[in-house]
């Protein structure tokens, strides 16, 4: 199950950092952040609560880049 979310971030490197942070989140099988389109594509693991996982993803992203936003 994959979903795409809108994001807000300032620089390309920060987007890379967000991608790493999201990938490391439990429940996320894979993640791809597209800085140019300001989109985050998340592949979830089977049977996880997407909303909960995304909240976790957002807080992990904030840890590496505090003025970023993930629109869930």
């Amino acid at each position, binding site marked *: 199950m994959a979903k795409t979310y809108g994001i807000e971030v300032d620089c390309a*490197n920060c987007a890379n950092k967000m991608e790493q942070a999201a990938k490391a989140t439990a429940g996320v099988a894979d993640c791809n952040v597209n800085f140019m389109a300001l*989109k985050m594509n998340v592949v979830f693991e089977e049977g996880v609560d997407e909303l909960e996982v995304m909240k976790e993803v957002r807080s992990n992203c904030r840890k590496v880049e*505090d003025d970023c936003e993930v629109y869930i």
Partner: protein
Amino acid sequence: MNKKQKKVLIRIIISAVLMILAAILSAVVKNMSWYEMQAVPWDEVISLTLYLISYIVIGYDILKKAFKGIIRGQVMDENFLMAVATVGAMALSEYREGVAVMLFYQIGELFQSYAVGKSRRNIAALMDIRPDSANLVTEEDGRETISRVSPDEVAIGSIITVMPGEKIPLDGIIVRGDSSVDTSALTGESVPRSVHPDDEVISGCINLSGALYIRTTKAFGESTVSKILELVENASSRKSRSENFISKFARYYTPAVCILALAIAIIPPVINLIAGREAGFLTFIYRALTFLVISCPCALVISIPLGFFAGIGGASRAGVLVKGSNYIEALSKVDTVIFDKTGTLTKGVFEVVSIHKDRIDDAGLLEYAAHAEDMSTHPISRSIVAAYGKEIDRSRISDVNETAGRGVSAVVSAKKVLVGNEKLMNDHGISVTECHDAGTIVHIAVDGEYAGHIHISDVIKDNSKEAVSSLHNIGIKKIVMLTGDAEEVAQQVASSLSIKEFHAHLLPQDKVGRVEDILKDRPENRLVAFVGDGINDAPVLTRADVGIAMGALGSDAAIEAADVVLMDDDPMGIVRAIKIGRKCMRIVYENIYFAIGIKILCLVLSAFGLANMWLAIFADVGVMVLAVLNAIRTLKTN
């Protein structure tokens, strides 16, 4: 400019003014007559205060981010680099340099965010094909009411009306009205297409002249415009090798330069001490700081994805949808192009190309054939009726008999007419005149006597020949044509297009086999593109390195299977696609080599003390601005 950018701009201006003020005031104070008499060096006090204020105005957010990063253990990023370099410069009493580094860094960041935002908007404007509403026509008691609804709410089979100047919101068939439509947003084709009742129209086109009534054939989610937007929006999530290289590079690069900078600051002075010379700590710390400023990886990290993004955007404006930057890269490496024949190089519709009469004149022959074939739905029959072009007088026709695989017999104007292949003629004991043209031959006999034949063939597209020769010109080594048609037909098409290699009599699964054979033979690092019209081609499109579907609007399977979708069915689009891919990759590589090259050069210079802070600022911000400007060039595709 958005709010955030404006704020940064104001900070830049304030900080720059303060910096200039500091320089002027300290010079003025120094030249004052009372200067020598003071115990305190006022010029330094004034300039230090102003520089410090200026530094805090411009750099507080960077310092904050760097500080937070250190607390979280995430030290190695550009905020950290900039913070260490500028704080270090201040500590060495190089106030002007310290402020300047921060100032120019912010100018660079502002420029970058402005450029990225601008190309985002550019591409959004190119792709501004999403319709906002549909005018739904409902009929009640013979009275027509038109209501404005969201395109999502329109069911398949509803009637909608589109006024001149409006976008066609959903795919459908025209029931009433004539007009011309502008398809340029979808296909890049600038000449408007004229449309009439029973014509199919696709969503995203703009209705130009007259009101149209359209019966919708697809729901909004399935319509062309939604498919295209979905494709473009998801395009850059498939990253190319160069992009992945850059993000990996950045991950190892920053820690590496930090360690190097540390080494420059520590090792030479220690060696000096051991050798009994003066240590020169300050000199080497200054060099290390310069080194840090140069090393900022921004130019690479931003310009490579920006180049691909703009490339994909520019390509979609030219009617070439590329599904990811990996396919931009793949397109640039194509040296073999395999064409499917029918629908790609040829129009895929049969047309009467010549009439060879035997006993009656051409017009008469065609008239008999068209009347006899009128009831048949076979594509060949339809092409004969189309070539006749006049009204068919049904009262003249009787006793129509169609035999599958043979042809038709009918009585037309009291004459017994046979229209069909050689077998049909043989069945009736009629001898035929052989025809030397490749294609389908339809023989005609009237009242038991041979009357002549009509030569029908699939017609080569106007641009096919030009496309093949342009492909050769741009350095494509091998062009192959595959077809399910007979050998002679294939031979004729291939030779008129000067294609040397072709394979005929192929079933769809055979095509996959042929493509696999070609894939095996390709040289290292060279790729094979397959071009098809998307009908029955899906397996081959997936198998080839680059699957190009042509004129595939409306064919979901093809859009799904292909890597590159040409929105119109002009074979010149392939040439365009390959050129765009090459241009984009050329610019991306220019940026990689240019940015890394300048950085390494300046790093070496600074390690040996040949570069000062000002050169470092150029190597950081200047290189980034140039690389971004270069990357934006990919947006222009012609």
